[in-house]
């Protein structure tokens, strides 16, 4: 069977996955406090509340609300925020999402780079190096993001004063918005100052999240490397007189494939970490948006953001699966 058909099926499979996630979101969120009360504040007369409830469809039976909810999401209607700005939720999300994307991609690169480097070294060399690699992987796994971020802020921001402790750019150096990803936008704008400013702001959050996540890759790659290096085909390569550097490449390739499947799952952890990292570094992404909106009990905004996360996760998983199928000839699709 052809790869594209596999891709098609994998993409189609997103629909039930999303349905499950959306249903969980619906069930959980419908149990939270009354969104209308939150919206109108403390001074609204009861008849206004009643009419608003009707308008929002909250007086309908639950299953009808559920169908409406799915229909609206399906048609891309995420509703309007209930607090502060009353803008379309999708706009609010799109304001914030690129920041999260920028952070997660940067952190992802950091974690994979560190994870691959340490994991491969640990698995290949063993000995003392391996022990320190293992300790690194355990310690980084146990790091608590807000605390670790705080330490980095203290050292690099407050004490050494070489890196900013929060935000995405210096005052006046926020690049014009093309994609919303600052590092990219500043390059598009061709402004080096903006680029450096964006990059400087990105370093600490990306390091925090990246290092915390790298332990998983370190561990996985190290274990895979050891597994792979213990396998007979590696011995067979040696028996054929293949040089160590080529064997290393072969073993990395083999060790990397299970890591790829992990990446999809790791992504959920990446986003979890992003919520904490964004909060710690005042990073104006979806994570901080959710935290803010929860504080306003902005029901539609929270729902929208959570749904958006769900879709995002589902899509990333599809992409990872497809890359996986592409790289591993053993997958029969």
């Amino acid at each position, binding site marked *: 069977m052809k790869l594209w058909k596999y891709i098609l099926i994998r993409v189609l499979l997103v629909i039930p996955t999303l349905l499950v996630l959306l249903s969980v979101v619906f069930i959980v969120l419908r149990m939270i*406090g*009354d969104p209308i009360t939150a919206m109108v504040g403390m001074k609204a007369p009861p008849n206004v509340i009643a009419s608003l409830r009707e308008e929002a469809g909250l007086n309908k039976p639950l299953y009808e609300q559920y169908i409406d909810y799915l229909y609206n999401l399906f048609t891309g209607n995420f509703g309007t925020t209930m607090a502060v700005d*009353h803008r379309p939720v999708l706009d609010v999300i799109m*304001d914030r999402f690129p920041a999260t994307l920028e952070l997660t991609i940067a952190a992802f690169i950091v974690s994979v780079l560190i994870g691959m480097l340490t994991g491969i070294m640990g698995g290949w060399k063993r000995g003392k190096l391996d022990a320190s690699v293992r300790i690194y992987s355990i310690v980084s796994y146990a790091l608590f993001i807000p605390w670790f971020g705080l330490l980095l802020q203290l050292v690099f921001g407050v004490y050494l004063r070489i890196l*900013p402790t929060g935000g995405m750019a*210096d005052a*006046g150096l926020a690049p014009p918005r093309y994609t919303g990803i600052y590092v990219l936008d500043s390059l598009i704008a061709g402004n080096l100052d903006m680029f450096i400013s964006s990059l400087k702001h990105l*370093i600490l959050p990306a390091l925090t999240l990246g290092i915390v996540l790298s332990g998983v890759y370190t561990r996985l790659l190290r274990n895979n490397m050891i597994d792979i290096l213990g396998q007979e085909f590696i011995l067979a390569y040696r028996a054929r007189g293949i040089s160590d550097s080529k064997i290393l490449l072969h073993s990395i390739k083999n060790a990397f494939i299970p890591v790829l499947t992990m990446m999809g799952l790791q992504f959920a952890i990446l986003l979890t970490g992003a919520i904490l990292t*964004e909060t710690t570094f*005042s990073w104006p992404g979806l994570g901080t948006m959710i935290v803010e909106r929860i504080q306003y009990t902005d029901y539609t905004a929270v729902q929208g953001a959570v749904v958006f996360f769900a879709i995002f996760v589902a899509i990333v998983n599809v992409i990872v699966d497809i890359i996986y199928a592409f790289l591993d000839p053993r997958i029969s699709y």
Partner: protein
Amino acid sequence: MNKAISRGILAVVVVIIIVVAAVAAYLILNQPSPQQQVQKTLVIGVTDKISDLDTASAYDFFTWEVLNNIMAGLVTYKPGTADLELALASSYEIKDNGTTYIFTLKDNLKFSDGRPLTAQDFVRSINRAVAINAPEGPEWLITSFVKNVTAPDNKTVVFHLFQPVSYFLALLATPPYFPINPAYKPNAVDSDQTAGGAGAYRITKWVRDQELDLEANPYFYNGTPKVSKVIIKFYSDATALRAALQSGEINIAWRTLNPVDISNLKSNPNFNVIQAPSAFIRYLIFNTEMSPVNNVKVRQALAAAINRTDIVNRVFSGTVVPLYSLIPIGMWSYSPVFKKYGDGNLTYAEQLLQQAGYSSSNKLQIDLWYTPSHYGSTEANLAQVLKEQWESTGMVSVTLRSAEWSTYLKQAANGTMMISLFGWYPDYLDPDDYTSPFLDASANTWTGSHYNNTQVNQLLFQARGLTDINQRTSIYQNVQNILANDVPFIPLIQGQLSIVVAKGITGVVLGPDMLLRYWLIGFSS
């Protein structure tokens, strides 16, 4: 092909490492100093957000501040005072027993983009706000008072009111009455519209939740701002704001730093802390029908046990002031009626509790509710300190409970919370706004206090119909005395505005309207 991929991966990895290393090296070796960059630019950091750049919809203090800086109305407050002065208008007259206001505009008014500004722009803007009728919007500031608004010619704006309103001029100083640029969508909220109005500044860049860049409006009716470029930087929390201030990234830390940072920065020679009272008050609500706080002695005992100074110091690091009435300090008719219970007056509290039948072996069991984020990070500490204070009588046992804002509001209205912590921002600066919503039984259902005192109801009704300030003052003082006896609410503290500026910043003026005027701020040379 697979080999190519693995080689490709390696190549990419190597390239990334090199790029990252190179950039890091560049950054460390080539430190651009933030101070140099902002030499001619004023950078103001805030933790607030601009909700909406549309006068038809924006209804929060900080957005109003920004709107006041990019727009102007017929009248405005004299900086630092509660006195009104003419802004876009050159003169006005009041007719028909105060139901008609006729304004004449200044000559050659222009929007910040250079378009001429006429009386029709006022009519268009005001009618637009009414027509859009945004949810939770400020349009009631128009519709409750104004029957219609017309422009008989390019320079005249005429308001017809339903009935005389003594503070109508004050209403005209609010954004819904501001003329807005025709670029705003005529029929819908235009949240990200940067065209503004005829204020001191115009917007050059607007990145939501990130920064707002302003430059001086060359067509401003009232001279040239001291600083030609102003940047508002938005921070997600107070700690980030403080860090930015300390790193020199911003010149001014405005709303809202943490109390501890404000008191800490007071002793820092690099910064000036400027403080002014605000009209924001904090208080407790009792559900007067719920046992055991339906016993007035219990409520009085709890009032006596509260130590406001301790709260001010431990929770707010001295950045707020104790409040002994629901009417804020500085407003006419204010009377510190709760002083009679004293502060942390444990003897009196114990005495009252004993009268109510409680003792150290038969403790008063009460629930204190708070909402964890709506009133900021100090809220839980406030609740904890109250618990401590009450429990130090030895006769009270407090259970702290919390709920997020919407649930909290709902529970308040349903009267399910025994004691709850709330706060109040005024809609208009008048004692009525600090008494009727709480004490008038027809208006206080939202509090869930179930407080209903016929005498108070009548007094408040009477005060609303009077115009004489002395008569009203004595009524409000009377009401406050009854409040202190019945204790359906306990006032705790009154807020304070604090602004921290870097040394060398001048012209920071804080008035009762709580809005900062950017155009007055400058660098001392």
